[in-house]
């Protein structure tokens, strides 16, 4: 339930984010979405679980409950939703390669002091927008763009394309451009979706995600330590990802250079 008369100041003296008019509206929207969700009752929004599409949540559930058997209804659902599922909205296919930058789901300054206004603005409006624009150009140049695949699906089939050398002995330039900019688009689509000004600090106890993390890492704290270490030790530019292997159901932490997407390895990035 959203407080209708929010406190002006938090106990630690920081301005309560709900005083920001946009944040109030936004918080109400999220609260409404949480109520509408038929899965579980959520008291606050956990961006990861909220933002993930139902298909991926089902895959996590299936994997963790061990129901990935071909003859079970859930197993069939998991098999049908193949490796290339889209983990974070928007998932609609733009046939004419005119993907747009998903708007930031919260105010630019609402993640302060952890990430400041200017960083969010540059990151989203310049860098993310740049990747989206260049991805559209690469898609337009790429042969075989038939408008039937999501960006995630195209990324998962990219390694085959990259392995094919063109006349110059290097892979097709537009395929390389898609690797960089499509990767940048997918990575940042996930990144901005998985943060929130009012985050839930851990997965809901007992939820499929929480169970999966405990199984794969031992505990939430162990996962955090591994993820933090992976992020801190990337050489040069790159990412640390929490990925789901849809085949084995395992979660793991991986590093990727530049904007390489885990979708290229058939892995689904959940957090980066």
């Amino acid at each position, binding site marked *: 339930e959203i407080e209708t008369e929010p406190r002006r100041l938090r106990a630690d003296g920081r301005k309560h984010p709900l005083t920001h008019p946009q944040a109030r509206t936004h918080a109400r929207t999220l609260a409404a979405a949480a109520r509408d969700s038929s899965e579980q009752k959520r008291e606050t929004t956990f961006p990861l679980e909220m933002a993930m599409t139902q298909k991926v949540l089902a895959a996590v559930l299936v994997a963790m409950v061990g129901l990935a058997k071909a003859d079970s209804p859930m197993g069939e659902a998991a098999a049908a939703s193949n490796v290339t599922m889209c983990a974070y909205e928007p998932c609609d296919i733009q046939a004419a390669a005119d993907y747009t930058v998903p708007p930031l789901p919260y105010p630019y300054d609402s993640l302060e002091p952890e990430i400041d206004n200017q960083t969010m603005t540059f990151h989203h409006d310049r860098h993310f927008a740049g990747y989206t624009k260049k991805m559209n150009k690469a898609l337009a140049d790429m042969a075989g763009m038939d408008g039937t695949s999501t960006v995630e699906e195209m990324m998962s089939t990219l390694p085959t394309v990259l392995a094919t050398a063109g006349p110059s002995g290097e892979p097709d330039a537009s395929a390389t451009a898609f690797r960089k900019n499509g990767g940048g688009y997918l990575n940042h689509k996930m990144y901005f979706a998985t943060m929130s000004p009012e985050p839930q600090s851990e997965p809901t106890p007992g939820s499929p995600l929480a169970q999966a993390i405990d199984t794969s890492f031992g505990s939430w704290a162990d996962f955090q330590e591994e993820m933090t270490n992976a992020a801190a030790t990337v*050489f040069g530019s790159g990412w640390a990802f929490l990925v789901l292997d849809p085949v084995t159901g395992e979660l793991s932490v991986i590093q990727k250079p530049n904007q390489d997407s885990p979708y290229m390895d058939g892995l689904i990035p959940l957090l980066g």
Partner: protein
Amino acid sequence: FSRRREQASETCLTLKSNSPPSSARPVRFRPSQQEPAAFLEEEAPSSDPEDSPPQQQPTMATSSLLTAGRSACKSLLQQTQKSFLSSSAAAASAPLVAAKLPDLPYDYAALEPAISGEIMELHHSKHHQAYVNGINAASEQMLDAQAKGDFAAMSKLTKAINFNAGGHLNHSIFWTNLCPKRDYRPPEGKLLAKINENFGSLDNLQKQLSAMTVGVQGSGWGWLGLDRDTKQLFVQTMPNQDPLSCGVPLLGIDIWEHAYYLQYKNVRPDYVKAIWEIVNWKNIEERYEAAL
């Protein structure tokens, strides 16, 4: 993404960009994916410790500027090469000399307005210092692992050594490549003649190297180098902190975000354009002539 290690030397000669001015676009050399062992093979192993140059890393003394790049490269190669040798005798006879952060030949603010004093201070005292600390730590661990015969650890450490040694080397060269704007003068003499021969003009060289450097994905460097065999100039980009392979590094342009972002944000072309105003061509001429 094939490694092409076996083709390295052939690729260096054929794909380096020193095309005459009429060529349509710069030839992009795909950044080297060589492991440290591969670039070590370029130097014949020397068992004589006396062979090591007295200076392990460049200082700002004038005489050392002449051979700073080459000797630093060579000494680092020898140093890390010795670490890899399985003979403990080699390890005992090649004591590790700690890397040191070189002093800048100018004040932090001296390169303004091309590069802000804020960036220079962070870049030198934090980032380069971190590479120095990193190579010292990794080298100690490597010698330790070698003494124990722990090949798993040695293998794991090669990445850290490559990264930090490269970072230390690249930045040591970089500081000498720059000078305050008031001291700027264009290239002269033998180097200018070679630039005109290999690129058509200084302007062409700057355009080619700028375009390649701006186009680096993620972190890396743009280099003007000299091929050791053919003595021709070439331009090449390298990823992350990989040292320039296939030749002697003459001029490096750091395109890691830490080199420009605070001032230029994401507008790389403005940074690369501005840096040409503070290139120390005297230093590059010295490096070139020493490498001939």
